């Protein structure tokens, strides 16, 4: 136990807390910027098991903020979950690391959820976050939300039955077009979010539920701002994810974004849940200011990214031309929309 001695000396954890941590299994959805940081911290802290899920592979543009990955991982286009696992095992061979290279959908997550003690947000889109939120409430597992862009970030710990859930806070899927691909990100923003996520994770995993932060934290590191906001007023008894008659809408297949190859064409159609609408003018402005050429008319926008031509419709639908690969289309779509 010498390797955890400094964590055991911290009285709020101690020998007892360390024993608890060593029994626990955390599931981290997404090992990009947030997920590489939290998985490294929890592996170093000595959890029993970490499951990491990611559909993506390592690229050079990830290295600026995604820990665990090296130039070699990017050159070999190593899947992120596998590249992370390789490094995590060098850091702590005592931890059982399960790497899953796949889209985290309801079927997959429900299959592996059984002995999971904690869900940690490492994703880059709200669709997967709402899925995690429903999983958390259906199986009564704490879920630590985090997200960031630019120098701005946020974190909140959701405890089923106590706090409002992500659905209570946001009401519906935000489609703001604020992603790391459109407005950029600096690494310290990621680290500030994950410092909060990891501290909350250690509280929960070591059996210190009473010290879990009850406020929603939001900050801007460049503008030197930090706010800590109470959330109680937003808890909604009628919420379909955490309320009295909850149905876990994001676990139902037809609630999620639908992705399908278009019949007879080299193109994929993506259709978001719940008929979300897009604010085309705002999206166009944001993409242009990020350096993209954006075409279109009042009814649709067109943009080229990674050699693929995309068309976005007002009703939220998008077509990704030049591919039949559903995962690639989905990835490019989310890199522009969030």
């Amino acid at each position, binding site marked *: 136990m010498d390797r955890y001695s400094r964590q055991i000396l911290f009285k709020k954890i101690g020998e007892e807390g360390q024993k608890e941590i060593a029994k626990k299994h955390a599931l981290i959805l997404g090992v990009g910027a947030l997920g590489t940081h939290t998985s490294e911290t929890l592996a170093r802290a000595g959890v029993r098991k970490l499951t990491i899920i990611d559909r993506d592979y390592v690229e050079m543009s990830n290295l600026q903020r995604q820990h665990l990955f090296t130039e070699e991982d990017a050159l070999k286009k190593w899947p992120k979950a596998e590249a992370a696992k390789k490094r995590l095992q060098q850091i702590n061979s005592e931890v059982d690391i399960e790497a899953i290279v796949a889209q985290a959908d309801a079927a997959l997550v429900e299959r592996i959820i059984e002995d999971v003690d904690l869900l940690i947000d490492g994703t880059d889109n709200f669709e997967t976050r709402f899925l995690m939120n429903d999983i958390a409430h259906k199986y009564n597992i704490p879920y630590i939300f985090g997200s960031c862009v630019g120098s701005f970030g946020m974190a909140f710990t959701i405890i089923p039955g106590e706090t409002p859930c992500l659905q209570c806070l946001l009401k519906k899927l935000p*489609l703001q077009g604020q992603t790391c691909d459109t407005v950029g990100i600096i690494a310290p923003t990621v680290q500030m979010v994950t410092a909060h996520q990891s501290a909350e994770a250690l509280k929960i995993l070591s059996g210190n539920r009473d010290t879990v932060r009850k406020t929603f934290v939001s900050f801007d590191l460049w503008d030197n701002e930090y706010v800590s*906001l109470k959330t109680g007023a937003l808890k909604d008894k009628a919420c379909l994810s955490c309320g009295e008659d909850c149905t876990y809408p994001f676990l139902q297949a037809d609630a999620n974004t639908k992705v399908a190859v278009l019949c007879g064409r080299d193109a994929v159609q993506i259709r978001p849940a719940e008929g979300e609408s897009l604010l085309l003018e705002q999206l166009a402005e944001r993409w242009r200011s990020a350096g993209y050429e954006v075409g279109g008319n009042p009814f649709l926008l067109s943009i080229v990214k990674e050699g693929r031509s995309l068309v976005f419709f007002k009703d939220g639908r998008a077509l990704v031309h030049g591919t039949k690969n559903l995962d690639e289309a989905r990835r490019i779509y989310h890199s522009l929309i969030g």
Partner: protein
Amino acid sequence: MNKILLFAHLKEQAGSSNLTFDVSGKTVRELRDYLESETDLGSLAGIMIAINEEFATDETVINEEDVIALIPPVSGG
């Protein structure tokens, strides 16, 4: 008067990190409509709104001197 703190892209939209308006007496829902018509913030659908360091519902009524924060949920990670 009410100070309105802006976060993330809203600062760029407004060209400032905060705004000052007298919006006391309005509900949060009315505040959204008011700011959408009176400022360059654009659509505030989906923006989270806190009053005096506490998130507010659409029905919450704003008082004099309340400090308001507009927090856009961002998706990066």
